[in-house]
């Protein structure tokens, strides 16, 4: 279920089973990717290739935390939680 706009990304629950929304198309670019949401028509930038990979891998893990733990270096994990939280806010990610 998508989060609504009144929630801040502090409310992001990384223990849930987040995945890429079926309404979102990803266009790879040198810097990462563009993500376009056909429902809310928002264009969001995925600002690194690692983030693109993470977003696409999410569905293979039981939770966002598990995906980050398995694929992102420990020093960077916190910033990726924040990046996923922002993507959840813009409904690029949904809980399956």
């Amino acid at each position, binding site marked *: 279920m998508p989060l609504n706009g009144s929630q801040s990304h502090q409310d992001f629950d990384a223990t849930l089973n987040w995945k890429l929304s079926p309404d979102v198309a990803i266009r790879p670019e040198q*810097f990462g990717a563009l993500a376009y949401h*056909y429902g809310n028509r928002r264009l969001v930038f995925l600002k690194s290739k690692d983030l693109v990979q993470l977003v696409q891998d999410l569905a293979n893990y039981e939770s966002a935390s598990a995906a980050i733990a398995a694929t992102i270096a420990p020093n960077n994990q916190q910033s990726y939680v924040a990046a996923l939280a922002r993507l959840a806010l813009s409904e690029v990610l949904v809980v399956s």
Partner: protein
Amino acid sequence: MSPEPSLRDRFKLGLDAPICLTWELTYACNLACVHCLSSSGRRDPRELSTAEAKRIIDEMVEMQIFYVNIGGGEPMVRTDFFELLEYATEKNVGVKFSTNGTRITADNAEYLAGLGYLDIQISLDGADATTNDHVRGEGSYAAALAAMEHLMAAKFGEFKISVVVTRHNAAQLDAFQALADHYGAQLRLTRLRPSGRGVDVWDELHPTAQQQRDLYTWLLDHPQTLTGDSFFHLNALGDPIDGLNLCGAGRVVCLIDPIGDVYACPFVIHDEFLAGNVRNEGGFAAVWRESELFRELREPGSAGACTSCGSYDACQGGCMAAKFFTGLPLDGPDPECVLGHGEAALKAQKVAIIPRPLGDHSKPVRVSVASH
């Protein structure tokens, strides 16, 4: 590695496909706005056919261009307009089209409300008929408001009211917002450019320095306002306005004109900024990816005369089109530089050599809506 390096610097190098593609479908128009960017009026006999237009939409699908901004001229005067609209939206290419509203009858509003994945921008350049019609022609205010009534009655949803900010309407921003609120619409404000016929009215219509400062404050106070990223030259005044804040010409933005010519942005319809034509081999993708002009625009530029200015990082030297059509060097200040450097540069011009826009499609005599 941080997941957030500077996106602006990446965008300056260009993307595999544009983020913001504008497509002027026709130079034909039933109005004759004095500031028209594309000097529209008469249809160009070389206009792309329906089949050619559909091929461009196919290319958008392949290039994952998620949406296209359609304009003109008045796009609704094309007899295949609805056909192209359906073709695009069925292929998940979202359409946002700009119209003067004259063709949005009650029936057309019903039809448009039934199409998914569609945005409409009604152009309005004054919050009252006198201010608007001075720029857009007699009867155009009433026609635009009638279109809005029809869209509201048809429950189209949130359309956009698109305003070019001028010296005459800069004090009406609250009134535009009230109008938008009344119709459940979103307000979009964009910058007047000295492009197309705009070159002839620039001196009369471009906002004063004080109006620019007021506009900047107003935009910060109304962050929900859409701007098409067109006011980044104001960022030298302080905190940046929301947006990418760079000149996207040939990097993330371009224009396809009615005859398939591809220009660096909608505001530079001039040979100097012509990158190629979609009718040539390789189509639009080849122009976007291989044109020499776009390659040059994606190279790191020098700040030129702005190098010593502490605000260059904020304003990026402003708008290329505004400089070009006022005769200023492209690596110098914007003519509306909020620190006054543009004004000084304009005064210092010994003889202003102003490039004239090419391809004038203006009708010989201005017409009013009522006569149609």
